[in-house]
């Protein structure tokens, strides 16, 4: 097999940042090529260069594609040559149907009039191909992230794809959805589609990739080929972070203390459909110094539970009581919940966690402006100092804390959200998918921070779809299914099988 794509010495600079420094990437025809590297290493940027998001001329270096020099001026150019990119942030229109989304900008029409019959037939074919059983008329907004991801792929398939680029496609997916997606990739490979996949989930990389390219600090570190050598996760990790990592989870000293946070008989109804109960008499507690996990499938109500507790940010007709150190606390508004000592780190950083147009410093201070002001007057110096402190502590890759959050890589944005809530100095942290889109090295750092928080006597409630993470970090795990907490396991009892069986038997 020959090389379908060769990117040579690609260099791309943004004001103040050299995102790519002579990166090279070779992808063979018909393979699945994994691109891995730390947050901010330049993976997304490299793919944007390839797909014409950053047009020829805005970077240095050469792209050779399918036997010739390629100079794409925009995405349409690269799409014409069969390069389709699915970005880290999905780009579907929630209020349009699946069919409409699939053919957006590529409508099946004659003389400007859409041929709905043909559109629906093609949509059904494509949905069948990606294994999504939904009606073409279903609104995309009604689908979960996993299914939306499949719609994105179906959209790519509708366009004569030769090289499919997926930027962290499984970051927001549950285990089973991820499996389905990876299987689909393998199937597409069998049909001759080449793909590049960016992922921080190294077990997935090992499972599907024929070759792996590791980039670090904007430069290619290594390329591995599964045909000539065995690709191990450890080898990838070593190249990614530049050192050996013996453990994926830092050692935890368990210190069970008094009950810190308690929620009793918590009931929540759906915000629009007032007869639908979303959370059904949930009871949970977190002790001081304890890390408690909530396991469950996507849509089991974990985020809804957390957000309804945090200032009634979700749902209606909420009933139940919340106590901190035995005292009933008022969590009926976000500011009151914060005052009571709660913090909620959202799973949806872009729309719920960050102000993208504003710099890091202003995002970090947002939930605790009292901490950088006196009598309502801001102290800019202090604010900058605080942001600097978190930049160092969390290892946020950026030229300065005055960089707009929009310009950070996905993983570094996540660190900014975490910093913001750490600065609010909560007693109880609710972390919703805290390591989504975060690289192995940074994950380890975040686990370390969670451990530090618990050592300080804080309570941590952690929602995660990555079971190994829950098993590696938590002292106790609640299992949630269809809005109810259906089981509770101690760290000793817990295993993937037991959690799954609790979910299934209910």
């Amino acid at each position: 097999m020959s090389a379908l794509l060769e990117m040579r010495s690609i260099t791309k600079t943004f004001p103040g940042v050299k995102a790519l420094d002579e990166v090279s990437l070779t992808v063979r025809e018909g393979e699945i090529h994994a691109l891995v590297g730390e947050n901010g290493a330049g993976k997304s940027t490299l793919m944007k260069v390839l797909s014409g998001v950053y047009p020829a001329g805005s970077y240095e270096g050469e792209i050779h594609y399918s036997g010739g020099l390629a100079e794409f001026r925009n995405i349409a150019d690269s799409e014409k040559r069969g390069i389709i990119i699915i970005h880290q942030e999905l780009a579907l229109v929630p209020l349009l149907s699946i069919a409409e989304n699939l053919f957006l900008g590529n409508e099946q029409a004659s003389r400007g009039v859409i041929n709905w019959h043909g559109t629906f037939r093609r949509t059904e074919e494509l949905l069948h191909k990606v294994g999504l059983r939904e009606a073409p008329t279903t609104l995309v907004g009604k689908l979960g992230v996993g299914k939306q991801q499949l719609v994105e792929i179906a959209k790519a398939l509708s366009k004569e794809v030769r090289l499919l680029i997926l930027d962290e496609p499984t970051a927001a997916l549950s285990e089973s959805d991820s499996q389905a997606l990876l299987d689909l990739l393998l199937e597409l490979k069998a049909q001759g589609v080449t793909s590049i996949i960016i992922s921080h989930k190294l077990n997935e990389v090992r499972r599907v990739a024929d070759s792996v390219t590791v980039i670090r600090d904007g430069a290619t570190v290594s390329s591995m080929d599964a045909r000539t050598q065995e690709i191990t996760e450890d080898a990838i990790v070593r190249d990614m972070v530049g050192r050996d990592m013996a453990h994926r989870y830092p050692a935890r000293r368990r210190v069970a203390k008094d009950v810190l946070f308690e929620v009793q008989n918590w009931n929540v109804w759906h915000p629009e459909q007032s007869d639908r109960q979303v959370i059904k008499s949930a009871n949970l507690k977190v002790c001081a110094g304890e890390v408690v996990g909530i396991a469950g499938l996507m849509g089991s109500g974990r985020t809804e539970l957390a957000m309804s507790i945090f200032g009634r940010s979700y749902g209606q007709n909420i009933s139940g009581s919340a106590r901190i150190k035995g005292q009933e606390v008022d969590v009926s508004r976000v500011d009151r919940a914060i005052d009571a000592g709660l913090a909620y780190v959202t799973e949806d950083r872009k729309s719920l966690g960050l102000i993208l147009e504003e710099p890091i410093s202003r995002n970090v201070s947002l939930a605790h402006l009292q901490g950088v002001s006196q009598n309502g007057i801001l102290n800019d110096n202090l604010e900058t100092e605080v942001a600097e402190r978190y930049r160092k502590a969390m290892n946020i890759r950026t030229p300065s804390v005055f960089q707009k959050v929009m310009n950070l890589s996905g993983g570094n944005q996540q660190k900014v959200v975490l910093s913001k809530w750490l600065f609010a100095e909560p007693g109880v942290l609710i972390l919703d998918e805290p390591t989504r889109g975060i690289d192995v090295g940074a994950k380890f750092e975040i686990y370390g921070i969670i451990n530090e928080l618990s050592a300080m006597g804080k309570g941590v409630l952690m929602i995660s779809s990555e079971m190994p993470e829950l098993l590696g970090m938590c002292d106790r795990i609640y299992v949630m299914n269809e809005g109810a907490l259906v089981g509770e396991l101690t760290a000793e009892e817990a295993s993937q099988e037991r959690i799954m069986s609790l979910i299934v038997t209910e």
Partner: protein
Amino acid sequence: MTLAQATTTEAEPMRIGEYLLGHLRTYGLLFALIAIMIFFQISTSGTLLRPVNITNLLLQNSYIIIMALGMLIVIVSGNIDLSVGSVMGFVGALAAVMIVQLDVPYLLAIVICLVVGGLIGAAQGYWVAYWKIPSFIVTLAGMLVFRGLSLLLLEGQSVGPFPREFQALANGFVADVFPAGIGQTFAAMFGARQVNVLALGVGIIAAVAIVWSGLRARARNRAYGVVDEPRAFFIARNVIVVGAIVFIMFKLSTFRGLPNVLITMGVLTMIYAFLTERTVLGRRVYALGGNQKAAKLSGIKTERLTFLAFVNMGVLAAAAGLVFAARLNTATPKAGFALELDVIAAVFIGGASMSGGVGTIVGAVVGAFLMGVLNNGMSIMGIGIDYQQMIKGLVLLAAVIFDVYNKSKQG
């Protein structure tokens, strides 16, 4: 990712070019204002910058600027207020009815008018903030309602004149506190007929304050290693600003001195600039406009903040209404007609973003002046109202296109 070394090692000219590109918006506005002033200064053969015309320019634009301060906050919070022109007219009418027809003491009338303005803002803000009704619609309704109310209140007639004390609100000047001798000495020195030492002094103090605070900010940025303005730029910008202020204040001092409204405007501008840039409250407004959901989940009371933005706008529209009525010395049913558009245009020319979260008080004020100079200059040149409207429209469009282009450039 490696931090580019460009910022520290490369030659100065390269840096300046890069910097200018990044801050084109800020400088662009200032340059545009200067360019337009030079153009009109020449094409009106010097009339534009005559002391009497500068004084006029300030008086003519005072109510626009006062409202632009409130409008900036409303727009930054992600809303819009179309009713301000009507509210301004209505409050002017109310003042006239109270003072001229009902003999209410003018100070009491002023207080009542400001409170009424606040209540009007509250009435509109309530629907926007707590019922989530788009501000465009609520204030469009308000615009019609208050236009009608002014007509009703004035019974279609003009009401005036106001007592002298009330007129002084807009047309008065601050008396020189310094002995006449000093003024005469200066006048002889500069070859002017008279010099109001207070006006000149205030100008110099303002200039010194601007340079001082600029230097302080610069030192702070340096301490935190922020890539800051190249020295040449800092100096050039300050020389221009200081020169302009001292020049204008000198011109004013050779006429009748400091207009009362200039003091009102200056103080309000400073207060609001401070409020938006340096206080927790201001920061929260930007956060609200930048991402309402994220702001809410950070504990910001987004509804209340939106409500307050409208209350504030109402009070400022009332203040503008008082100044306007005092300036014309009569309240007319047509007062404030379509003025909201000038105010909104000023804020957008000043760099605010339609989607909220972006914009500065200083930008809005400069934007208002830019519109004001355009109006004034074109009127002196004798350009008809038809062309004036077209030119102003095109300037607004150009400013916003420039914004969008600039943004896409930065990626």
